[in-house]
């Protein structure tokens, strides 16, 4: 009850809006709080400090192995927890024997590696005579006894537990107040496969999978550039999901990277499992229908977007990578646009925009015209529609809603039915239902055409999320069209337009480069210029380097031939 009153109060009474810094991506901007040094250097220092930070009190690894053992058993609820493996053994060090144990999850780790490169050296090789009888056991274990490439020393339990949770193995040795963590991930996962949802005909056919590092590597192998930075951030208080921020150091705007870092660090949830969740946690407006983040499963497309100065976020366990910031027009681009020749791209884009227009407005326009603007229809068509509607008992609004809803139904059901039945269901649904509905005089035949065109239009939209938003808004336009004809539809367009122009995706106005106007509007927004003309990165991203091509990118066309010179 008090909550309701509080909410009511919020709506009814004026209270001073809290001071919020709105992030606006400005040209050449450095983050406002760090004059002088770039945010990249700052981040570097921060990371360094973090890795050297002493563990919090109470979290330090004890030098007494029994204490460590009880602690770890406690943490992992051994023996209730059955897939955790705790193996105790002895290390012979010089002439003494030291107790030790390792702990790891069965199934998440590669036992082969543990056996051969961790346990074997520790248990067997340590017996061999030492070349160097240094007193320092810690250094001895680290440098000689663990022939594994990824070993870290941690002084706190937390890090060790984190590592074990993420497919590592922790080694505790008696007498040492540190533990060693080795990365021995070895769970089963999907290999690199063909993309399932963003299918293109020409171009690379590799998709991201669910493994973070594989995904990073997929991008890195395309962008062979040491300036490509992969920054890790753990999101989720409990799940500690590793996420990577990818950007090209000398291209991406530092303020932008800083803002993304800030948003990711500012997420306070327990579990964060997928990129789809992360998208909702970092986007600017959750209510706005269309997505403000590109979520792609194609490494090549991600690389292309990174080159233009955008930033990618990879979430471990999710085959989709988020790329920000974007504008409304980027959502109408397909990865294939880069790989096919320029005349075809323009035709395709043109068709895509028509498809978007149809998917968004066609039913609304149909309702508006048939209910308000009869004079617009050519007389022959008008009489045909009138004849076909003569026996239909519903008003055209009900008629179109009926068909739209059954269309969505077929779509959703087709997704759920297993494998090969899916398309069949679609055909049955579309053909039989449509045909029968017309025969039964429930809908008019013209309407079937409208709904079919709308459906096809919405599938031609390259971005999956955008297609959703278009479908939602379509219903709004149907109602507005039924309310006041073209006036209603125009007011609806105006409202959506106002909202879009007020919106920002990570500091970039959503409707740029048209509102606000920036340069390069005719290069790669609605139309696409030839490849050699793509000299500049999008202006609205304010990248560090404006140009990405030489002025004459086809050098061979200009200078002389070698033979001629000689």
């Amino acid at each position: 009850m008090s909550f309701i009153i509080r909410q009511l109060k919020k709506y009814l009474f004026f209270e001073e809006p809290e001071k919020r810094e709105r992030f606006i991506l400005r040209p050449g901007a450095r983050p406002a709080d760090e004059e002088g040094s770039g945010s990249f250097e700052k981040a570097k220092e921060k990371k360094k400090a973090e890795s050297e930070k002493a563990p919090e009190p109470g979290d330090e690894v004890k030098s007494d192995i029994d204490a460590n053992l009880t602690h770890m058993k406690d943490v992992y609820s051994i023996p209730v927890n059955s897939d955790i493996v705790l193996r105790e053994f002895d290390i012979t060090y010089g002439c003494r024997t030291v107790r030790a144990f390792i702990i790891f999850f069965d199934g998440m780790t590669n036992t082969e590696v543990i056996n051969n490169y961790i346990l074997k050296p520790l248990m067997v090789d340590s017996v061999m005579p030492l070349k160097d009888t240094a007193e320092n056991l810690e250094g001895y274990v680290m440098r000689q006894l663990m022939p594994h490439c990824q070993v870290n020393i941690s002084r706190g339990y937390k890090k060790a537990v984190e590592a074990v949770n993420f497919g590592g193995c922790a080694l505790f040795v008696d007498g040492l107040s540190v533990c060693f963590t080795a990365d021995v991930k070895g769970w089963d996962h999907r290999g690199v496969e063909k993309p399932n949802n963003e299918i293109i005909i020409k171009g690379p056919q590799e998709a991201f999978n669910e493994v973070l590092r594989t995904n990073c590597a997929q991008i890195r192998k395309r962008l062979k550039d040491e300036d490509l930075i992969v920054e890790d951030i753990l999101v989720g208080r409990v799940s500690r999901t590793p996420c990577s921020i990818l950007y090209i150091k000398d291209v991406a705007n530092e303020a932008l990277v800083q803002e993304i870092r800030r948003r990711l660090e500012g997420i306070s949830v327990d579990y964060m499992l997928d990129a789809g969740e992360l998208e909702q946690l970092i986007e600017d407006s959750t209510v706005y229908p269309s997505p403000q983040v590109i979520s792609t499963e194609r490494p090549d497309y991600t690389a292309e977007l990174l080159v233009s100065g955008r930033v990618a976020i990879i979430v471990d366990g999710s085959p989709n990578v988020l790329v920000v910031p974007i504008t409304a027009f980027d959502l109408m681009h397909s990865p294939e646009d880069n790989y096919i020749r320029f005349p075809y791209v323009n035709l395709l884009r043109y068709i895509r925009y028509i498809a978007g227009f149809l998917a968004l407005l066609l039913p609304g326009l149909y309702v508006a015209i048939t209910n308000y603007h009869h004079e617009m229809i050519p007389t022959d068509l008008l009489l045909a529609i009138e004849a076909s509607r003569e026996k239909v008992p519903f008003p055209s609004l009900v008629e179109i809603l009926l068909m739209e809803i059954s269309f969505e139904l077929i779509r959703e059901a087709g997704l759920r039915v297993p494998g090969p039945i899916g398309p069949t269901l679609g055909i049955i649904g579309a053909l039989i239902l449509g045909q029968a509905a017309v025969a039964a005089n429930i809908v008019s035949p013209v309407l079937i055409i409208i709904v079919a065109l709308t459906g096809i239009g919405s599938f031609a939209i390259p971005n999956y999320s955008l297609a959703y938003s278009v479908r939602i808004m379509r219903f709004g336009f149907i109602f507005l069209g039924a309310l006041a004809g073209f006036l209603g539809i125009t007011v609806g367009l105006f409202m959506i337009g106002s909202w879009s122009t007020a919106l920002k995706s990570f500091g970039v106005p959503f409707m740029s480069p048209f509102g606000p106007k920036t340069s390069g509007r005719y290069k790669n927004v609605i139309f696409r210029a030839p490849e050699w003309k793509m000299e500049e990165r999008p202006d609205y991203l304010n990248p560090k380097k404006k140009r990405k091509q030489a002025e004459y990118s086809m050098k061979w066309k200009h200078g002389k031939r070698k033979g001629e010179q000689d």
Partner: protein
Amino acid sequence: MSVFTWAMVILILAYGLIRTVSYAVWNWKNNNRAGSVFIMLVCIVMIALPAYILFFRT
């Protein structure tokens, strides 16, 4: 006008009035007396004008 329309009109007017008056109060508290008075005047016009249109104009 139907009952529903009346209800809508009254609801909108009441909402606008309460919110604006609360803004005036906020201004008064923040030492903007003149501004507060101005907002109150706006409030009066806001109620008077629709009332005139709805009731008193022949």
